[in-house]
């Protein structure tokens, strides 16, 4: 038994390096996409201290608007812009209806409010677009399709063009956000708010505006994540389960760190695929559903604030 757990998988990795590379690649791609969803959480948590449970449904919602509008005859790129506008409207409505009345409430209350938002959006989305799963409009958005097989290491490695595109687009998105946060005026304001609400208010930064901006930014991240995940596995409400996958990523990286979200995403993505492929068969498979959480949990025991999280110093 010990041999099977600790030695055999590694021997297998050494014997078939192409499979290992393939698994690693798949892990990295899904890791990037997890990171993209986790990024939406981090943006909102950083700027407002709200743990936004609705991020998952925002991903579904954005993708649904895009596909739904296209099916109604709107050109693909106009639909993309309209979906972005819809996320802006959502951000404004959320700020006005949910966040503003709940200022100064404990974290758990705001967390619950995003639960309410989740349920509302599920009902709303299904009411308008119906609950059927549908195809993402990959061709119309000029996303590449097809696969390339690279012969290497005594086997062949299969690269989905879409995955490559997803990784590239996600990286660009993350880079843009990093620039936005560090170089622009609004980015500085966002960081100020993240540091201290009171201090930010006292130097004349409008909290309400900031909230709209971060929710809109999170909405845009959700839109991109929705397109990418939608292209991989179709647009349906079951997609929001993927958002739950972003939670261990957050734990691993720390709730407030953008690099943490990215590195956490990659670790979880790779760890999950390796675990599923090499160790999964030992226990009957399907370990992907919980492995990420267990990795995160074990990691937490060692470093409770996550990789890049802020250490909370408690005083009495």
């Amino acid at each position, binding site marked *: 038994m010990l041999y099977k757990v600790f030695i055999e998988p590694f021997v297998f990795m050494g014997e078939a390096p192409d499979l290992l590379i393939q698994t690693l690649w798949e892990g990295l791609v899904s890791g990037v996409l997890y990171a993209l969803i986790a990024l939406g959480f981090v943006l909102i948590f950083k700027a407002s201290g709200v743990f936004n449970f609705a991020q998952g449904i925002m991903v579904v919602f954005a993708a649904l608007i895009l596909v739904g509008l296209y099916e109604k005859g709107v050109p693909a790129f106009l639909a993309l812009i309209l979906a972005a506008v819809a996320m802006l409207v959502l951000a404004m409505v959320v700020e006005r*209806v949910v966040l503003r009345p709940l200022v100064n*409430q404990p974290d758990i*209350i705001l967390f619950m409010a995003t639960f*309410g938002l989740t*349920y509302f959006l599920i009902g709303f989305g299904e009411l308008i677009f119906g609950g059927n799963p549908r195809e993402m409009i990959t061709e119309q958005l000029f996303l590449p399709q097809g696969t390339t097989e690279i012969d290497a290491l005594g086997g062949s490695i299969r690269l989905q063009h879409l995955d490559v595109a997803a990784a590239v687009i996600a990286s660009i998105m993350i880079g843009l956000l990093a620039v936005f946060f560090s170089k622009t005026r609004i980015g500085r304001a966002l960081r100020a708010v993240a540091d201290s609400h009171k201090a930010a208010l006292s130097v004349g930064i409008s909290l309400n505006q900031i909230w709209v901006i971060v929710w809109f930014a999170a909405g845009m991240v959700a839109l991109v994540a929705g397109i990418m995940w939608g292209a991989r596995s179709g647009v349906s409400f079951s997609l929001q389960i993927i958002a739950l996958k972003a939670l261990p990523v957050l734990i691993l990286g720390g*709730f407030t760190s953008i690099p943490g979200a990215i590195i956490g995403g990659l670790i979880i993505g790779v760890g999950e695929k390796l675990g599923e492929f090499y160790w999964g068969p030992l226990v009957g498979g*399907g370990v992907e559903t919980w492995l990420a959480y267990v990795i995160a949990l074990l990691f*937490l*025991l060692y470093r409770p604030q996550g990789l890049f999280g802020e250490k909370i110093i408690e005083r*009495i």
Partner: protein
Amino acid sequence: MLYREAGQFKTNYVADSAIFPLREDRIGLAVIILAAYALAFLGNSFVLQAVMIPFLVFSLAAIGLNILTGYTGLLSLGTGAFMGVGAYACYKLMTAFPGVNVIVWIFVSGFFSAAVGALFGLPSLRIKGFYLAVATLAAQFFLQWCFIRIPWLVNYNVSGALDAPLRTLFGIPIMGPNATPQTRYLLVLTIVILLTWLASNLVHGRIGRMWIAIRDMDLAAELMGIRPLQTKLLAFAVSSYYCGVAGALLVFLWYGGAEYDVFNINQSFFILFMVIIGGLGSLIGSFFGAALIFILPIVLGIVLPAALSPFGLSVGADVIEHLRFMIVGALIIFFLIVEPHGLARLWQIGKQKLLVWPFPY
């Protein structure tokens, strides 16, 4: 004029520290309990089967989560899985020892889920808040995976589902296909009342004070000599005990049989809704929350088509389902804005107003 504190003097410490210091409250409680028992003989089987039994079961689960989240301040999203542990443990015990009365096993099955809960509560000393919430998700997904992948848990049943075997009490079937909603309701009601009474004693006593101290400020509590790990683990264990019993009741006395899917993450969320809407740190709030979250959609399903039909709008079942989601979501936000302390706080305000009525203060 009927509800007055005046004239009720306490002459000893026991009377002074009573949970219901007012005579009117005690009478009111007795009336409610009597009414609940009377309902078994007055209500039809739809009311008992589709409304009252699940309401009581969910109340019990909500009490369990409330002990953890409301009293001890540890957020948990793994409630559904802990309920599942109770149900599967009960099934194994029932089928392995058919001679022992099933009620014993319902109570014992909670201990299994208590042990599992305490195990997953171990990280609670190191991590807090949302981090802990995500850690409990690990419990949720891992346990759910176990329910699917370990056929031993369902006695290698091909369908992979739990089913309630026929079990009797005093010769009356209380479980299985022949049990009437009436007997099952009476059994659930009795168990829930018993466990609520127990929980009430726990949270008002030394242990409850320890939990509340940990919730309000864990460092200060530690300095006062409360050991955080033991206290938190105890909260996890007791909470999971309640959830486990609720899970066993859910499967064997409500559904009569279920698959692993009953204990999915949505179940956990629903119970968390009940706790938050009902009121964190309040036992009666658990009942209010369960009533609102569980009974409201049923009422909506009946009222909405009736309300829309005069306008010539006929709505399909799917539209009602979607509207139900929207309304529940909107209600959660509405309640959080209007009364973040939940329905229990409204109840408390109402009682306070009644005490001073007709004067405003």
